[in-house]
């Protein structure tokens, strides 16, 4: 019953030879790295539309809608002002502590939410992955883009806070742009790494909150970076100062605040920022690409 077509010029061929003769390709084969990058580029409109759609849909049932993009960082800042500014009245070696704190917090939250979203970029979208063929790297990149849009709103709030707390407007503020772009590349890279890990290992999602909290304490978000050198052995302090999130936070503080204490000199910070972005961005992309065929399995 299986072979209804007996009179066929191709019937003597094996299935593989038949496929080769007519130029068929293996379904779902992983393209080469260059071809994959080109395909990803041709899907750029999908990435931005998808990222945008995620923002819209996450606020779609709320009354205030996208206003929450701005309200969330404002509320965050208000809570920290209440605790550190009013209740504890922290000064901690830092002039303008509230602005110092909010800068660190917003920069950190940008990476944190990109990583948290990245873990579920594959596992949370299996329906889409099993229905449509597109470069899967679109998903973690779209997650990063969504968070980037939230970060832009946070930066606007941050500039408001910085102005209210009496920092002068300066040309150095422009440095925010390259710092933010480098951090975005870094975030996308890490999001791709955790997306691949999270696709195989569901336990990672449970672990991420603890990892991120540890990372937050290691990045000097809630206190002055000067404390590291004061309380830790030198090697540990140096290690912490190379921590990518601390680097991006320091760059932002350096750009927006006058007289904020820095753990490393500015040129070192830039070198580290570029290095981390390249390492995570390229490494994460290649690592994610290597797993491309497996993502439909879940």
């Amino acid at each position, binding site marked *: *019953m*299986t072979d*209804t*077509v007996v009179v*066929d*010029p*191709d019937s003597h061929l*094996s*299935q*593989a030879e*038949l*496929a080769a003769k*007519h*130029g*068929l*390709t*293996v*379904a*779902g*084969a992983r393209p080469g790295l260059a071809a994959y990058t080109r395909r990803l580029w*041709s*899907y750029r*409109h*999908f990435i931005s*539309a*998808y990222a945008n*759609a995620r923002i*819209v*849909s*996450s606020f*779609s*049932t709320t009354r205030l809608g996208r206003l929450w993009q701005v309200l969330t960082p404002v509320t965050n800042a208000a809570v920290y002002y209440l605790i550190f500014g009013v209740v504890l009245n922290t000064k901690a070696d830092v002039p303008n502590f509230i602005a110092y704190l909010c800068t660190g917090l917003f920069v950190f939250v940008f990476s944190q939410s990109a990583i948290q979203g990245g873990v579920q970029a594959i596992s949370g*979208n299996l*329906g*889409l*992955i*099993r*229905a*449509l*063929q*597109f470069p899967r790297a679109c998903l973690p990149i779209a997650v990063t883009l969504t968070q980037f849009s939230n970060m832009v709103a946070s930066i606007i709030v941050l500039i408001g806070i910085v102005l209210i707390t009496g920092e002068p407007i300066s040309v150095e503020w422009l440095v925010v742009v390259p710092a933010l772009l480098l951090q975005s590349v870094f975030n996308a890279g890490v999001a791709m790494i955790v997306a691949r890990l999270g696709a195989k290992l*569901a336990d990672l999602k449970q672990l991420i909150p603890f990892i991120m909290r540890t990372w937050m304490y290691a990045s000097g978000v809630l206190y002055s970076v000067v404390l590291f050198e004061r309380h830790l052995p030198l090697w540990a302090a140096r290690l912490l100062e190379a921590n990518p999130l601390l680097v991006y936070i320091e760059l932002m503080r350096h750009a927006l605040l006058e007289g904020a204490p820095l753990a490393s000199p500015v040129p070192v910070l830039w070198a580290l920022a570029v290095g981390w972005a390249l390492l995570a961005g390229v490494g994460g992309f290649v690592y994610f690409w290597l797993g491309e*065929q*497996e993502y*439909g*399995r879940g």
Partner: protein
Amino acid sequence: MAERIPTIVADDVHVVYRVHGAGTPGTGSPVAGLRRLVTRSRPPTIREVHAIKGVSFTAYRGEAIGLIGTNGSGKSTLLRAVAGLLPVDRGALYAMGQPSLLGVNAALMNDLSGERNVELGCLAMGMSKEQVREQTPKIIEFSGINDRGEFSSLPMRTYSSGMSARLRFSIAAAKRHDVLLIDEALATGDAQFRRRSEERVRELRADAGTVFLVSHTMASIVDTCERSIWLESGVIRADGPTDEVVKQYEDFTKRK
């Protein structure tokens, strides 16, 4: 007869699902998890389901092939593997171009309007921005969701299951495909839409495409497909002209 050009070649294909969290009683407790960590044994919550067990066939250009079988026989899995969405464990699947799968649960975003979903779906299929702009009104028109008022601007969660199935079919059918795989997508529409979509399937075939159709409605298989493959527990039971295969299948289901 002209030389027949194959579009899909399946060579002894096996697909295995690994299901996490398919717990047997007594393995989900924290103590059991700890014991596994200590004894380094494989978690019993991962179970393998051998869904496709050595399937071989060749599909040619201009053919419409019906895929029939009881629930859980592996039809949808086979289509996903053909579309390259599920990796094959053993054997190989060769395809011409990129086969497109049109399933009932092609995930669109329920919180977004139908219009935005059309845009997103088209971009995900690899259309350019201009094509999307040009196609969107046509797709909405074809789906007929605006027949009862301006539904295309409402979120998709407000749609009935038939309406969203129609929209999904319309999105997928908007593109020219070398190989189109249809998974039960025509089942939910009403008679009028089914007629329109069957028309569209015929057009796609005329464009030198190959169409696979999974359906439990034998009438629509008989209407659209001249060849059928009967799959049972991941193995091909019969492959041949639709009327013969359908007859065998119906005898089989009646006997049960």
